[in-house]
């Protein structure tokens, strides 16, 4: 049995591991905070759509030598605008429109990756590349994460109001259009930051799971935010460690830890968990 100190410290001897731990925990924490809004607003599917739709943006940005965040932002927000347009101007329902648009964008991205000669490695985009993240991408990812974090912190009360009761927000003169696009922009940016860590396929987990876990554990938004961030950071760190020692996919490990935390919360949560509810049931009958 390996001694725990070695288990914890050895990865720090490698620069790539230090970077990986840094990026995955920062991104994990920020995405987790955002995931609270996503789960409460019911935007999980939207998160999935946006994270897939950013692919062509990322490829084009790489090909043109622009910051990938820019491309991701344009295509992320653009895809949602198109979803809204299809919903409004045709009889197609929203979930259909979402499914339609994000696969269309994703397909465009795939075609671009295979046709545009650039340094983009498709598997890195699809499955993340947290262990080999290039320095300029690292910088950009941290900047994006910090930006999203600031936006969420500064506007958290407005965003909670927007998720809970947009009608009231409007009736007291707060612009819901602004908040809608603010949350959407944060989603696009967080998606591209998460993409660097766990890849397009799994990024939606970072944008949904920690929020869902925390939602089961508390009835206070403040606590929910802290719990989500804690579970996001914890999953990123533990996942990265496990992947180092077991030589398994880091993205897979990170998301798996998140999922296990959710399952634990689902079973054990005091009030909203399966066991918690069972103990109350005999009394409420």
């Amino acid at each position, binding site marked *: 049995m390996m001694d725990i100190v070695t288990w914890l410290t050895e990865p720090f001897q490698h620069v790539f591991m230090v970077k990986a731990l840094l990026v995955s925990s920062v991104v994990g924490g920020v995405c987790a905070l955002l995931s609270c809004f996503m789960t*409460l607003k019911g935007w999980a599917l939207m998160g999935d759509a946006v994270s897939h739709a950013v692919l062509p943006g990322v490829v084009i940005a790489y090909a043109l030598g622009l910051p990938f965040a820019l491309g991701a932002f344009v295509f992320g927000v653009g895809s949602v605008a198109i979803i809204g347009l299809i919903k409004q101007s045709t009889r197609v329902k929203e979930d259909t429109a979402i499914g339609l648009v994000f696969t269309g964008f994703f397909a465009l991205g795939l075609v671009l990756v295979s046709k545009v000669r650039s340094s983009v490695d498709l598997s890195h985009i699809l499955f993340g590349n947290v262990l080999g993240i290039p320095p300029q991408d690292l910088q950009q990812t941290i900047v994006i994460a910090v930006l999203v974090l600031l936006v969420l912190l*500064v506007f958290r*009360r*407005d965003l*909670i*109001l927007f*998720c*809970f*009761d947009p*009608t*009231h*927000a*409007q*009736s*007291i*003169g*707060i612009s819901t259009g602004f908040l809608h696009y603010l949350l959407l922009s944060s989603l696009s940016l967080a998606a591209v930051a998460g993409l660097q860590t766990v890849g397009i396929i799994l990024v939606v987990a970072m944008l949904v799971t920690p929020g869902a876990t925390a*939602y089961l554990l*508390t*009835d*206070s*938004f403040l*606590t*929910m935010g802290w719990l989500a961030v804690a579970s996001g950071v914890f999953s990123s760190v533990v996942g990265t460690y496990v992947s180092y020692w077991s030589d398994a996919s880091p993205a897979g490990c990170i998301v798996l830890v998140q999922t296990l935390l959710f399952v634990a919360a689902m079973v054990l949560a005091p009030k909203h968990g399966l066991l918690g509810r069972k103990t109350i049931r005999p009394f409420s009958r």
Partner: protein
Amino acid sequence: MGTVRLCPGAQPPPRIVVHNLSVSYGSVLALSKVSLQLKQGIICGLVGMNGSGKSTLFKALMGFARPSTGTICINGQSVAQAQRHQMVAYVPQAESVDWDFPLSVADVVMMGRYGSMGLLRIPRSCDYEAVRHSLERVELWPLRHRQIGELSGGQRKRAFLARALAQGASILLLDEPFNGVDVRTERLMAHLFRAFRYEQRTLLISTHDMGHITGFCDQVVLINKTVLAYGETSEVFTQENLALTFGGSVLDRSPSPYDQTNG
């Protein structure tokens, strides 16, 4: 678009001026050529059948339904300006919120204060005061820490009324506040509404309960897509006008000609 009409200056009466308002949803005409004025310090009852456009009138007053013609002036300002200055509070007919949302009753009532807070919405002591005062007035202060979904139907209605109160608006637009509440809440609300009038606030309340109209409404508006009659309750609330509003059946004094369900 409707005629551009200059809003009168900011002198107190009348508080709400609706002129020639029409609203349609696609091809459905919900309101046609509605004109009315509400003065300060009165309670005005809004009466009409289900589907007669009561909720639509409230939505138009809040800028949620776009008028095809006409103008609305609140305290001499446009709807958007009045909202930004926290002059109007609105409690919709049915709250379409997620009742599992991780917010306490006090958190929700605090949301009434956001419009008058700074950009960061950090509550000041006056905001906490307003929340406490509002919760006390609707008798929910002891339940302030409850998660919002853990309230009964009547308590939920009171919580949202408290939020409107906390906003500190001088005009209250209440769409069927008595719908589905218990007797205790009904009494409490009726009592509160009289107190609001005493505080010189202006109230527009839609209701199906004729007892409320004669009980505490100074004015009444009878509508069915358009204003059929409006003015002082004693003058307007006649059998003839009710017959006009609900069809002939009121005349023969059948117990409840109007529908009590959600409209």
